[in-house]
């Protein structure tokens, strides 16, 4: 946002909000910031807006009373943790002076600077931050519709879906087959399906040792692939098979009633006792309704401050945004949220935002004592977010058991730390 001076900000806000909002900022009434979604992106942004400028009136809209995180939900699916481990409430954010409203945002009136909630309330804003996460596309793969979700859980939004997949695995007979079908890029959490396969294998190896996992992938490669395959060979030999998209992995149709995934123009049918189908995704519904998403389904933003390029006065964070080279992860959302909070505070003060760095690290557990990671530092160059060359990368392939154990411990420490950083 280096070029965004106060005058620019006011001009932009003026276009969006009309004269009343201008008068408000001129007379220094507390600026009103509304944040939609209290996941990693929205909650972090709300918390750090209040920290950076305690005079701001920050209202956070979240439809759930407690949020359940996708990170560490694979542990729940594998029977290694309960739902309480991944649940977060809002006492910390309230203590930080954030007003938390439990309702659904259903419309944005950018011309008036207003968000409309399902319960009828209207929230006025000078700046709006939209961080709704993903919506699963139930129109993309024939057969995978709203009804199919309860037969073939995606478990790609944590909560009831996580528990359903857990129950199906527990009920499955020994010798059964688990199908996992990840989508093509871009999607939430690129290493997530493979961590899931690992931890499900960990469960099966102990409780149903004759069972098998077949990953039918839409892609020809995946995040941390060499590390995962090394870990699978070491810990779950013969249990997990991965099929690349071009080698017959691409699922073209699903038949929920029969537990069947159809590939290769109908030539091959794979039947699973448990089927975890992860459909393609797009930005959360409110982002579509507010006109923030383009034809790709995701929201284009100015990389410096994550301001929407389509709707003035609105920022989009986290999975919903097109964030250049950054993957769709909780860490990315948390990192973007901090820079966005600083950009909003700088703009309100008429200051220029100094050059920022973004960070991501995704830990995955191959087993409870076997962790691997991918990390990167990002900056804006040539108008987009790119990884800083020479930095980042994945855990070494030739590391020993002690390194893997330490990274597993750091994965758990990371989860505790980002949870505190996000929800207080």
């Amino acid at each position, binding site marked *: 946002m280096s070029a965004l001076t106060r005058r620019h900000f006011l001009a932009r806000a003026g276009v969006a909000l009309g004269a009343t909002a201008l008068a408000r900022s001129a007379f220094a009434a507390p600026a009103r910031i509304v944040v939609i979604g209290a996941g990693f992106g929205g909650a972090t942004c709300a918390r*750090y807006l209040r920290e950076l400028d305690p005079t701001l009136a920050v209202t956070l809209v979240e439809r759930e009373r407690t949020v359940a995180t996708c990170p560490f939900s694979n542990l729940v699916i594998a029977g290694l943790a309960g739902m309480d481990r991944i649940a977060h409430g809002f006492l910390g954010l309230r203590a930080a002076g954030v007003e938390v409203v439990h309702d659904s945002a259903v419309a944005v009136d950018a011309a008036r600077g207003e968000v409309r909630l399902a319960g009828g309330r209207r929230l006025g804003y000078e700046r709006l931050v939209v961080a709704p996460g993903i919506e699963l596309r139930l129109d993309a793969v024939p057969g995978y519709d709203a009804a199919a979700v309860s037969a073939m859980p995606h478990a790609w939004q944590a909560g009831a879906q996580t528990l359903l997949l857990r129950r199906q695995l527990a009920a499955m007979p020994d010798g059964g087959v688990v199908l996992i079908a990840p989508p093509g890029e871009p999607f939430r959490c690129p290493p997530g399906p493979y961590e899931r396969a690992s931890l499900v294998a960990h469960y099966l190896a102990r409780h149903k040792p004759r069972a098998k996992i077949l990953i039918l992938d839409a892609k020809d490669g995946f995040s941390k692939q060499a590390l995962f395959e090394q870990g699978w060979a070491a810990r779950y030999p013969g249990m997990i098979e991965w099929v690349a998209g071009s080698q017959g992995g691409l699922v073209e149709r699903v038949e929920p009633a029969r537990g069947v995934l159809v590939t290769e123009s109908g030539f091959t049918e794979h039947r699973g006792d448990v089927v975890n189908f992860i459909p393609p995704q797009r930005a959360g519904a409110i982002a579509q309704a507010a006109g923030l998403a383009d034809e790709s389904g995701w929201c284009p933003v100015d990389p410096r401050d994550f301001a929407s390029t389509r709707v003035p006065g609105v920022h989009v964070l986290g999975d919903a945004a097109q964030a250049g080279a950054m993957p769709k992860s909780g860490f990315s959302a948390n990192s973007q949220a901090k820079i966005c909070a*600083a950009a909003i505070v700088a703009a309100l003060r008429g200051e220029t*935002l*100094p050059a920022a*760095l973004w*960070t991501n690290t995704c830990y995955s557990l191959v087993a409870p004592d076997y962790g691997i990671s991918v990390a990167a530092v990002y900056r804006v160059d040539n108008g987009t977010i790119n990884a*800083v060359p020479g930095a*980042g990368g994945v855990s070494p392939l030739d590391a020993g058991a002690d390194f893997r154990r*330490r990274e597993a411990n750091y994965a758990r420490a990371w989860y505790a*730390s980002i949870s505190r950083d996000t929800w207080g």
Partner: protein
Amino acid sequence: MKRRVILFCATLVSLAARTAAAGDSPDLAGFVLGSACLTCHAAGGAIAPLEGREAVGLAEQLDGFRDGTRAGTVMPRLARGLDDAQIARIAAWLAAREVSR
């Protein structure tokens, strides 16, 4: 490494002077570089909390991760993304933060 440390110290002194002069307004330049550290290093966590620690020591450790004289699992990969000025900024920002919240 010694020369770098001297450079860090000089930068830190000038940063401290500037921060004091700015009064109440937060050190946004430090925040947009250093706040990502707190995602892993939050107060009270199992990964060493960094807030309120002495700036020169922090800068030295980051420099060590970056040039390979100090081993780690993830820090070497992250520290290689920082230049000298960014390390000095981050160290000063972390040092100036209150220890717990």
